């Protein structure tokens, strides 16, 4: 009898941070309403925590008047430098905020922006975090700095350089991409950003036979979404009055519809958005035209693609003969494969690879398994991508972990009594094993 009691007791650890039954009260504070925190005016009773922040930033920090007394006052390390180009290794582990005017364009986190559904499905966790903290804070980490350094040193007359960001489950590959997206946007690149390829192979919306080439499969609605996303991110380039982004030949969509040569690429996109039937072909045209134009002009294109290895793996789209559509018959995949080749210039290709969401890889909950590029890209991917530069994303270093916990305490995301103590931090460190995603999941319920 005694021993069974002790087994029960062991369910709670010393600090009580990790336990099975989490009372809902700890969550209530966060999810009480869609707009949880009323912004309080700083005064003498409620000093602004981040008073080092420059005043011109409209990002207001979270200051809540009903701060529980037990919570420690912690300030996470931040940098006010908002240009990624200026980030250096000295800032490693620091947070910085993407200015809202840029953030809205790049990440489109507000429900009013186009293709919200796609981003909602792909960048959900990031969106929640940014919405609740009322700021788009990104931690500056080494892999992003590394890629930026390479890009800065790149000779753009050479064929495009491909980067493959790899690392284990939850180590922060997608977050690295968000940082890089900001970097490319800031540098004036045209963004060819695919938030997550694997949703097209598993969670597609509508399927139709291709008109352009029989036997191929189109995903019209998904394509429309992506075009909207592209338009959102690159509106300033496309809508320029004297843009060089023009077609070099006439595209005939149907008997009555055609896009003449010399018309701006935004026309192509408009066709795709308005006529979903042609959206897939529009993407093909867009890729072809962009590759052609940038090789000759001073525009630069950054292809940023999450889970690029899904381009080379089968889909779950059923066919009449009860088989599934292979990757080389999905026209979207074929179009985006073209961007990964190094037969064009004046651009850069940054991709990540992942095990999760790949159709024929067994789902492993333990976060293990082979995560290396050659294995995940497979024969076809290797043939397309080689030679590329693999960039490893490691788990948090101790410095980054501390800063992450500090940030979460500061933003009141982490509210446990023992969260700020050394024992609590140790427990979070060991139980999460410095893995960012695991840490996020742990903290989400504390």
């Amino acid at each position: 009898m005694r021993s069974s009691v002790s087994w029960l007791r062991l369910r709670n650890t010393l600090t009580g941070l990790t336990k099975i039954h989490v009372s809902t009260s700890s969550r209530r504070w966060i999810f009480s309403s869609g707009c949880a925190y009323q912004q309080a005016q700083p005064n003498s009773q409620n000093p602004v925590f981040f008073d080092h922040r420059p005043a011109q930033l409209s990002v207001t920090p979270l200051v809540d008047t009903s701060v529980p007394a037990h919570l420690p006052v912690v300030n996470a390390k931040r940098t006010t430098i908002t240009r990624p180009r200026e980030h250096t290794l000295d800032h490693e582990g620091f947070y910085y905020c993407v200015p809202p005017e840029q953030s809205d364009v790049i990440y489109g986190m507000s429900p009013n922006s186009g293709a919200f559904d796609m981003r909602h499905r792909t960048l959900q966790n990031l969106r929640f975090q940014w919405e609740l903290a009322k700021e788009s804070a990104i931690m500056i980490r080494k892999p992003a700095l590394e890629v930026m350094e390479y890009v800065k040193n790149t000779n753009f007359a050479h064929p495009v350089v491909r980067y493959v960001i790899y690392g284990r489950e939850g180590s922060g590959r997608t977050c690295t991409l968000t940082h890089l997206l900001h970097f490319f946007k800031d540098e004036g690149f045209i963004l060819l950003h695919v938030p997550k390829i694997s949703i097209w192979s598993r969670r597609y919306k509508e399927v139709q036979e291709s008109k352009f080439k029989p036997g191929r499969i189109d995903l019209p609605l998904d394509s429309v979404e992506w075009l909207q996303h592209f338009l959102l991110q690159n509106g300033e380039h496309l809508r320029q009055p004297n843009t060089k982004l023009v077609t070099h030949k006439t595209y005939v969509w149907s008997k009555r519809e055609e896009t003449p040569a010399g018309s701006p690429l935004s026309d192509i996109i408009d066709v795709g958005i308005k006529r979903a039937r042609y959206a897939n072909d529009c993407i093909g045209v867009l890729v072809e035209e962009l590759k052609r134009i940038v090789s000759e002009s001073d525009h630069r294109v950054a292809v940023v693609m999450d889970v690029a290895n899904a381009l080379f793996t089968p889909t779950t789209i059923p066919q009449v003969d009860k088989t599934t559509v292979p990757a080389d018959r999905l026209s979207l995949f074929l179009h985006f494969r073209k961007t990964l080749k190094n037969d064009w210039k004046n651009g850069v290709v940054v991709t990540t690879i992942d095990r999760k969401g790949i159709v024929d890889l067994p789902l492993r909950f333990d976060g293990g398994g082979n995560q290396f590029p050659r294995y995940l890209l497979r024969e076809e991917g290797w043939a397309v991508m080689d030679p590329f530069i693999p960039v490893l994303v490691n788990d948090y270093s101790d410095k980054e972990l501390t800063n992450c916990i500090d940030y979460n305490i500061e933003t009141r995301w982490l509210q446990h009594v023992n969260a700020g103590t050394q024992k609590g931090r140790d427990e979070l460190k060991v139980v999460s094993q410095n893995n960012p995603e695991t840490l996020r999941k742990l903290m989400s319920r504390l």
Partner: protein
Amino acid sequence: MSELAKGVRWTTSHLRLLLDQATRYAGPSRTSWKGYRGVSSVSGSPRMSSNSPSDANAPRKLSGAAVSEFVKNAHLNEADPKVKVNRAMRSYLERAQAHNMFMKQQQQDFEICRRHLANMMGEDVETFSQEDIDDSIRYLLPSNLFSRRSRPLMKPPQEVFPQEKEAQFGIDGRPFRSLFYTGLPNYYQVLYDAANWTRQLDDLEDERVRKGKVPPEKQIDLTGTAWKSKDEMSKMLLEKISDHDYRRFVLTMERLLRHPYAYRVEEFIKKYRQVLIAETKDLAPPVPKKDDSGKSYAESHATKKSCHAWVTLKQGTGKYDINGQDLLFFPRVQDRTQVMFPLQFLNKLYDFDVIARAEFGGNSSKAQAIREGISRCLTAFVTSEELELMRQAGLLTHDKRVKERKKYAYTGARSKPQWRKR
């Protein structure tokens, strides 16, 4: 049919012969029954009471002091033609004699057989001990029966045949115990004693109250003890006690314990208490070894359900290597917490590296097996105080529960198939 039963007339000398046999072959008696003492005084202070049941609770065997007392009496009354042996005593003596004759025969047979076995095994008869006999039987008649006492054995007759009960009455057939006819004299004697003490303490209290005295703040120190369990009591009193009887015993004793002067009968109460916490078992901590780089490490093996874990705990910086992965080998938080807990408990999270191999079983089993393995390894590095803390936290207790087997006609161990009345 024995000679006795054929209606042969009993004489005193005959009896003595019988009794001689009875006393000679019965083993040494552990206690002596002093018989019933007749009138005894209960008045006076509680400490003076002479109604001590201490003798009553000792185990009693065939023959022994009762018979020797009887022999003494028989000797005294040898010339007395009026000496009458009660039928009960006569029957008892017959049984005793038959038993002793039988045991004597068995003893002789066993000796011969021991010589036979020594000859078979080619050993020296004189030095062929009981251990040698056991070894030989284990070799000649090997059995893997799970129950060890069901395996073949060859033991001396004293260990094979149960000892018989000693007589509970004297030569005239009068039982020794006043409560004999209740069937549970020892048990009811305890109840009587408790009631006796309670009354005497009540009297004492009355007397003190009359003198205007307040009972002292003394209390019996009963920490770490509890009433003896039903089985313990049964064993102690040599009587089978029912649940109801046991409840009554506890009630009575609790009432006595609540008395303000209960400290005066501490000795009596302590007799029926047992120490609750068993002493720390002789944990054999694994011996720390040194690896090539001079770091000391300890190894252990632990199980949970069908899972086996081999754990190495090495001085280090808090790294985990579980089946080649780090702690995220376990997708669930609880499992990671389980593994971490022993080190966290002793505040040594960053003092050791854990290298574990866990096989079979599920995630939870693996985690708990590794936890147990880490705890065992830790015993090699901790102080005795920390060890005691770990034991109290249950870290050193093996979880011996296993999956309950499925039963036929059921869908699981106990769950019944879905059924609806038609």
